[in-house]
């Protein structure tokens, strides 16, 4: 399928998503909107990380500053500025681009580890400063505006979550298309070269710092645009939009989604947003799970979810698939057992540590348990232990099945 074809498919998908049974409530559509916003932010971040090899711990600065610029712009619209609300993210994009160019000129002089640390320091600076300048940043409560009070474009009054979703989805499509096109320009290709071997880039006539600067500015622009979408959706922007937590979240999204594929960022954004929203309903330990998941991906699945999907797609129609599927089937029950055991242990300990007043009785996986007694502990530990042990024994079979698949592809090539 061509890129054009895929773009149309994506557009159709985005159009139909809020009408799928189960997705028709306001809260589901709100979740979809959040995912779309995160996707724009994550795509902008992957321009830096996956495409140019720049690890930034402070990308939320541009998201947040774009958000603040947009919310002020929205207030101006509330006050009479005759611009329809769907155009507000452009203010965010402009703010993102401007700050991106200013800060980028400073920070892209170095790459690698130094760049990462500088981005961290700059992020902390902007976040701390936001609390010192209440007239622009609104202090602790943030800045609010209304998305319904302004000239309406074709009856689009932005009152319903559905409308907000469609505006956000439209911006997602536009941003994704532009970023994709950007990566196929000379600068985009040189960005890949800078990622692979910045030194050699100099010897083919280009200044790697200049390439980084350009990509950085573009990336900041789209991050600012995402901030604008955030402003419209929530009608409030506060200091957390600039925080280290938000910078960390987008890093997690992009890496878990997979840095090597363009849509990996979108996959990660969807997965992590879902985890953040849903998981936090079930457990207070969700940040621990996220951290463990992240570490697991870094150590064992560096290609992320997208890499994993691609890997499996490649072997899907081949004969080796059967051996692989069978090895998975054997390992699956033990994987479930081990995870259930581990999760139970974590949940029990977490509950006792953070909510001692809730008492010893709790219900996990529909099983009521009394954490004061030893049996839940033993049961969970046992499940985790046995599961892990069996998994370790089942692993060589999986590895062998994949090795065979690899040999087959080689033989055919």
């Amino acid at each position, binding site marked *: 399928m061509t890129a054009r074809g895929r773009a149309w498919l994506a557009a159709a998908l985005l159009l139909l998503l809020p009408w799928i049974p189960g997705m028709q409530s306001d809260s589901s559509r709100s979740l979809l909107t959040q995912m779309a916003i995160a996707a724009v932010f994550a795509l902008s971040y992957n321009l830096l990380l996956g495409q140019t090899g720049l690890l930034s711990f402070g990308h939320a600065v541009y998201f947040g500053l774009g958000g603040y610029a947009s919310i002020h712009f929205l207030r101006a619209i509330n006050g009479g500025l005759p611009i329809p609300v769907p155009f507000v993210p452009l203010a965010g994009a402009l703010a993102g681009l401007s700050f991106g160019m200013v800060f980028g000129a400073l920070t892209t002089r170095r790459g690698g580890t130094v760049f990462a640390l500088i981005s961290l320091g700059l992020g902390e600076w902007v976040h701390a400063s936001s609390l010192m300048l209440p007239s622009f940043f609104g202090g602790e409560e943030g800045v609010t505006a209304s998305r319904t009070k302004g000239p309406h474009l074709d009856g689009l009054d932005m009152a319903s979550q559905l409308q907000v979703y469609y505006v956000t989805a439209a911006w997602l499509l536009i941003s994704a298309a532009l970023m994709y*096109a*950007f990566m*196929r*320009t*000379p*600068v*985009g*290709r*040189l960005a*890949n*070269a800078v*990622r*692979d*071997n910045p*030194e*050699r*880039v*100099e*010897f*083919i*006539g*280009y*200044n790697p710092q*200049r*390439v980084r600067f*350009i990509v950085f500015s*573009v990336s900041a622009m789209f991050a600012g645009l995402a901030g604008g979408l955030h402003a419209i959706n929530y009608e409030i922007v506060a200091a957390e939009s600039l925080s280290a937590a938000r910078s960390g979240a987008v890093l997690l999204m992009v890496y878990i989604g997979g840095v090597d594929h363009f849509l990996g960022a979108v996959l990660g954004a969807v997965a992590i947003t879902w985890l953040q929203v849903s998981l936090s309903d079930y457990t207070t330990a969700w940040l621990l799970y996220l951290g463990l998941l992240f570490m697991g991906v870094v150590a064992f699945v560096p290609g992320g979810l997208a890499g994993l999907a691609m890997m499996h797609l490649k072997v899907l129609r081949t004969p080796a698939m059967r051996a692989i599927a069978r090895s998975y089937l054997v390992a699956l029950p033990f994987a479930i057992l081990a995870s259930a055991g581990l999760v139970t242990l974590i949940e029990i300990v977490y509950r006792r540590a953070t909510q001692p007043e809730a008492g010893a009785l709790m219900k996990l996986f529909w099983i009521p348990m009394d954490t004061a007694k030893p049996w839940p502990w033993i049961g969970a530990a046992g499940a985790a232990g046995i599961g892990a042990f069996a998994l370790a024994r089942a692993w060589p079979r999986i590895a062998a099945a994949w090795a065979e698949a690899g040999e087959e592809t080689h033989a055919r090539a």
Partner: protein
Amino acid sequence: MRVPEPATRPLALELVDVHKRFGATPIIRGVSLEIPRGERHAIIGPNGAGKSTLFNLMSGRLRPTHGAIRLDGADVAGKRPFRIARRGLSRSFQVTNIFPRMTVRENVRCSVLWSLGCGYSFLRSIERLRNANERADETLERIGLTARRDALAGVLTYAEQRALEIGITIAGGAHVILLDEPTAGMSRPETEAAVELIRSVSHDRTLVMVEHDMSVVFGLADRVSVLVYGEIVASDTPERIRADSAVRAAYLGAADA
């Protein structure tokens, strides 16, 4: 030290009393060299003589402690590598220095961009740049990697990577080409193929080459300079170098000559 014949052609590269010290250790101790346009010049010498350092000085990777380096008469000592590359000097590396996660075609295509005036453009798709694509495909043809154009550079065999290394170096059409041990690690047939390639790409250009394989040197070079402990002990035609007893003692010894 043999004094080279006075140059009558314009000089592509000129080194005047170049010194390079790392901390207290002198590596290059007063090297003067004149390489006229269109010459194929080989630099030989024992390990540790400073050949790669010399290349690094000429291409801008290192800055000389003192001395002058001129490219087409213009002073380039200590300039950033990309400025020197833009003036038409291109170099290859002894340890393969490619872009491993990009395709072979992409590797070569990026190398032609500056010479075609693309600059830092981000408004047109690279696929639409016909010149760039044509030039890239031509280069791929010359280095014999057309069949592997869509493979990721990191998975190529060693010889293929060395060929790509040369491809990246020549793709931009530089008129002064520096090749750092281009045939290192190659078998005899691979070396012969490489020599043919080097001969064809250096036609009408200035070539400076560091080499250990004497058959390559004597087959290709117009002139040879011998670098020992950071100094040039001889600089002359291959035949005279071969016959020079001082050079023999210092370097060639009983090896294949």
